[in-house]
């Protein structure tokens, strides 16, 4: 465990600057919510565009300034409050989100004129090119991470991390752009970009990479990147295939999906899936290291590779992010089903497979926590668990019919 270096916290996130900024963001979010509830009417018909107006910006601005100044005053009066660990841990996530939104605004300037936007031919929209950038970045990151295994001390590792981050920002802003573009195609077509397989794939890449990059920053385990980004790259190829068979178009929503539940249920689910992907990568890395060690290999890269114990802990940590998120997502799905179809549980294939995934990881946690299993068998479990997750995510849509049939290829 000595390989773990202490968490380097940027000074800008610590103490008053982090504390004040955190509450600035919180204020901005409160501003958005307040504008939706008490601001000018039109949220129902204009959707996202409702928030891209000057009056919306002023509500958000007031919220942000109020949060920022209030927290600064409080922090100056009681310095001990400003040491809040919640603010310190959360503020960099908000910074990232803000940067992603600013990037999206920048990219949106390159959108074609309204007259050139047509539902039938979406090839001139900017998001397509940004998604291509994301693909390239993730593939490059995978190659660089693999190279890094064999040249651990060179610049390659830093480049790998940088291109993975570039991929995350490209992917995230391409999704935000798609959200905006869907409204350009028509007010009644506009919807959050989590409605079909192609969009959620991009979401999956980004969340998986972000969870991993967070681990990398905290625990200095860059060698694991080769495994995570390989999984992401496999997905990237699948995404490219999807787009080549015409699945990348923005399509209007069927009535069942026209609900605010979609915006909550789907991303929550993908936090779960992504964590399980990271757990699988940690498990795979464990198995590789374990095999090399047992063969008595003295491969050079083992020196900088995370130890077996670290990998075991990382896999568990990923599951402990994913399991509660997945549980909550399934419950949210049940709540939506209860509102849309009248029953919270119908033993529909997607629901049943979600239960299977839940049982798989539930059993994982039981054998680990109450039976003290560790090591190789649990590493295999995370790999197998991810295969079950993959089937729940893609297999059910492709091979089994049921209520989630809108996730299918059409």
């Amino acid at each position, binding site marked *: 465990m000595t390989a773990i270096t202490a968490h380097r916290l940027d000074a800008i996130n610590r103490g008053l600057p982090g504390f004040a900024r955190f509450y600035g963001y919180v204020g901005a979010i409160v501003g958005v919510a307040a504008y939706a509830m008490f601001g000018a009417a039109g949220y129902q018909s204009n959707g996202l565009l409702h928030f891209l107006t000057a009056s919306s910006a002023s509500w958000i601005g007031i919220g942000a300034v109020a949060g920022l100044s209030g927290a600064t005053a409080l922090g100056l009066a009681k310095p001990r409050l400003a040491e809040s660990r919640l603010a310190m841990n959360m503020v960099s996530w908000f910074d990232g989100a803000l940067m992603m939104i600013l990037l999206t605004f920048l990219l949106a300037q390159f959108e074609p004129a309204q007259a050139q936007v047509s*539902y039938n031919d979406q090839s001139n929209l900017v998001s397509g090119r940004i998604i291509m950038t994301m693909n390239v970045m993730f593939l490059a990151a995978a190659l660089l991470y693999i190279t890094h295994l064999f040249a651990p001390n060179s610049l390659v590792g830093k480049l790998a991390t940088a291109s993975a981050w570039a991929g995350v920002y490209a992917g995230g802003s391409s999704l935000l752009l798609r959200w905006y573009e869907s409204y350009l195609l028509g007010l009644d077509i506009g919807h959050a970009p989590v409605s079909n397989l192609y969009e959620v794939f991009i979401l999956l890449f980004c969340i998986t990479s972000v969870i991993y990059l967070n681990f990398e920053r905290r*625990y200095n385990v860059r060698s694991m990147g080769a495994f995570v980004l390989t999984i992401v790259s496999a997905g990237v190829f699948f995404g490219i295939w999807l787009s080549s068979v015409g699945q990348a178009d923005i399509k209007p929503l069927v009535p069942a999906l026209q609900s605010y539940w979609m915006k909550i249920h789907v991303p929550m689910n993908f936090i779960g899936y992504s964590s399980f992907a990271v757990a699988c990568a940690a498990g795979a890395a464990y198995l590789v290291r374990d095999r090399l060690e047992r063969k008595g290999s003295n491969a050079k890269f083992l020196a900088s590779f995370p130890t077996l114990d670290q990998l075991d802990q990382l896999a568990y*940590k990923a599951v402990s992010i994913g399991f509660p998120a997945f549980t*909550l997502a399934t419950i949210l799905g049940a709540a939506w089903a209860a509102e*849309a179809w*009248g029953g919270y549980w119908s033993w529909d294939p997607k629901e049943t497979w979600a239960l299977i995934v839940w*049982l798989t990881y539930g059993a994982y946690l039981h054998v680990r926590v109450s039976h003290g299993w560790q090591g190789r068998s649990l590493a295999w479990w995370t790999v197998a668990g991810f295969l079950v997750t993959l089937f729940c995510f893609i297999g059910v849509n492709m091979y*089994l019919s049921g209520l989630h049939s809108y996730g299918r290829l059409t």
Partner: protein
Amino acid sequence: MSLAIVLLVLLAIASVIGTVLLQNQAQTDYLAQFGPLWYWTFRSLGLFDMYHSPWFLTLLGFLMVSVAVCLWRNTPRMLREMRKRKVTIEDKSLQRFHHLKHWDLEKTDVATVQAHLEDQLRDWEIKSAEKDGRTYLRADKGRWNKWGYILTHAAILVILSGGWISVHFGFRGTMNVIEGGGQENTIRFLKGAKTEKMTMPFTIQCNKFYIDFYPTGMPKTFRSNLSIYDHGKEVVHNKDIEVNHPLIYKGVRIYQASFGDGGSDIKMKLFHLNDGSVSTVDSRVYSTYRDPKTGVSMEFTGFSAFNVENMAGPGEPKNFKDLGPAVTFIMRGPGLKPVKVKTFMNPFEQKGKNVGSLIMVSLSGDKKDFQPFSLGLDFSNPNDWKLLQAFGKHLIDSKEGNEQQANMQAFRAALHEVFGNKLPPNFQHMGIRVLQAMNNLSNVPWPFIPILQDYHQVYYTGLELTRDPGMNVIWIGSAILVIGLCIMFYLPHRKLWLVIEPMADKVRLTVGGMTNRNRLGFEQEFQRTLSNLEKMLVHQQ
């Protein structure tokens, strides 16, 4: 306890079966699919309605018992442990800690060190004691972590009980109400392999059904305007319900689930190929018309007012076009292969040119196998048919030498017969259509061409009616589950023991730490705490 794991894995494996084997289909389909031996094997195992089969329910029951036993056994112990915190610790146990650190501090005394520590660890719950001249401090964070275990397991019991209440005291069924038709009060639902009925204590009338489409032909919204009558009195008046927005009456939730054809009126024209006569048929969807002359029957299965198709070729940008109203039916007759036919009311236009009526034929009866078949003639225009008949007649009469001249002459004669001297402006197109039809119609095996002439569309609205007294229990259980999981994973129980031992000229401080979860996070927290302590205790002096 390992029973729990066996049960979880068994439940997971069993659940797979029900997703691979389609549940609650018609028994005849199963028989055809598996053959008698496997059909009876599967049926006796209850695999066709697996999630309600006795063995699956028994498995769930075992899970409940197992969870309950675990809770019964562990809860008292955990509550006791959470309340009672032992401050002193044996040296032997301390030495076994993963996280351990010694300092020898000079020029200080126990009280100062203790005060420093208590200040530094103000986020922790601290308890102190003295024994054998040493001062023991115990610091805890997240010491209620075991509540996570208790809550999650209790939540599983609550959720399973909620499910049991739903199944035993609730109902869920469908009711199709025809737009503008009578009142309905019966729901239908599957119980095992059988469809059962249940009568509601009120009746529902669908006043109007609305549907909107996207330009791609996908339904955009649909909603029903309903009235509810209780003992003949209208208790709910003209209320709209929509997908995702149900209506509640007397504890019964009424959902907009689907829609379909409620028996639209269909008017067809049959163009008889042998004698050129035209007859009309008045029928409706879901009924069958049998032509008395030829014995050919048409079973009407569906009607749609909009038929949006992507007219783009491969590689071209999409081009959605509404082909207009169409009716589908199954055509059967003596000596004919039964086929599914879709026939349109309007002629088909290509690049602004009328290229005649279109029908689609599916040999398999499956929608996706529809093949377009161009008839050539525009059957919605009576003159087209008249011209074709006249042309055919004159073609037999014509005596000119070569075929082309014969065709021209016959066509001129036919034009004159139908239109006299006043030719319509687009007669060239009409001529092309007639020639095309001469060719295409000779391939039609049927005695007549059926064409949709008029319609009156009637929808039925598919409602789902449920009462579910277990639902709130489920939500309570779910909330407990999520809270429990958060406590379990994100508030791990971290313990520090600090032993201050006065020695001859110095004070020895020993710090040991442990956690029950998230060791990586604790490692960092422990190091951070140590470095803070070190700054304070060692460097400040």
